[in-house]
């Protein structure tokens, strides 16, 4: 169960991190983490005891390599009142901006458009996911220290 809780928390945190990073892309400062929100609506494992009691303090997790060689993830979890109140990224994959030259192909003329939000009802969503495991692992090891 704990693993599920951690998973759920980690997912939420990643969402929060993404939100933060978009707004502060060149600034890797401390994250203010809002309540984790999951885009899942059905039969999502819910943490049965959100009050899992951790000792107050700040705990640093192990450095965990991401699965595609983008460098390590390491987080610090801040526990206050027995709950995670903050996650600080000590290390995370870099996002510098330089692009890659790849083999040029002969290119047909394809259509372009500016993306716009759609309101139509949908059954499910396709989108990129990141492996949450590196994140979970670092968080899990931080929380183990908080026991």
């Amino acid at each position, binding site marked *: 169960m704990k693993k599920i809780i951690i998973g759920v928390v980690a997912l939420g945190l990643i969402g929060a991190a993404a939100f933060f990073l978009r707004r502060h892309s060149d600034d890797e400062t401390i994250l203010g983490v809002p309540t984790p929100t999951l885009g*899942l609506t059905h039969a999502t494992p819910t943490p049965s005891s959100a009050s899992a009691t951790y000792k107050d303090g700040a705990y640093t997790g192990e450095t965990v390599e991401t699965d595609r060689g983008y460098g390590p993830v390491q987080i610090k979890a801040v526990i206050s009142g027995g709950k995670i109140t903050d996650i600080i990224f000590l290390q995370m994959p870099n996002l510098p901006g330089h692009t*890659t030259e790849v083999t040029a192909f002969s290119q*047909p003329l394809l259509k372009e458009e500016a993306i716009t939000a759609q309101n*139509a009802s949908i059954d499910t969503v396709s989108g990129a996911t990141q492996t949450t495991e590196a994140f979970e692992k670092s968080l899990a090891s931080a929380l183990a220290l908080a026991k």
Partner: protein
Amino acid sequence: MRQTKLLMGMPITIEIVDDTVSEKDIKSIFTFFQEIDNRFSTYKKNSEISKFNRGEISEKKLSKDMKKIFALSEKTKKETNGFFNIQKSDRTVDPSGLVKGWAIWKASVLVGKKGFQNFYINAGGDVQVVGLNKEKNPWKIGIKNPFNENEVIKVVGLINKGIATSGTYIRGQHVYDPHNPNSILQEIVSMTVIGKNVYEADRFATAALAMQRNGIYFLERQKGLEGYMIDKKGIATYTLGFEKYVSSS
């Protein structure tokens, strides 16, 4: 009946609309994903892949599934001019870029064998749809906005197809260019591929994203694949055949 579970580090959703579906049917599919994870997860110390990477299992002694995945990886590497490559710089192998799509496809075959004809399986944003949705229409799949997690920027209607998206958002990068392992890919932030099944869609989405802007032209040249690419400025480029899937409403 629709259920979601967090497995393999991602949410997996199964929805079966045929009325004979039972909880047990869906549970058995989740069990299947769990078994795949136990075998292929590079995060699990005792997984077959981890043992192989530590040299504890020889190539000959690998399971049938693992051999299959290695063969498929080799095939994909050739088909994508080396842009899809499971070999990492430290000489270990990580086939996870292929395993997900393959596992969803295998799971869909299992659901089909149970006699169900109308369902989808979505694992971490890669989806196999079979038959029709509850309203007896093609399954409506939204493509996530790479700049806004909670927004959809395109809706496609699919029957018996796979759709997969590779992207660079959320945190860090998802895919790297194996020809330039230290380069960071940023120009293209999202690459969605529709294929005859999710296995095809997933492996080509991964490779096309690694090709960056050329990825969409690569997809254009592949038979049976359509693509929708979004760059960092929010401009989408799509293959000529993509439009036929776009829902107008």
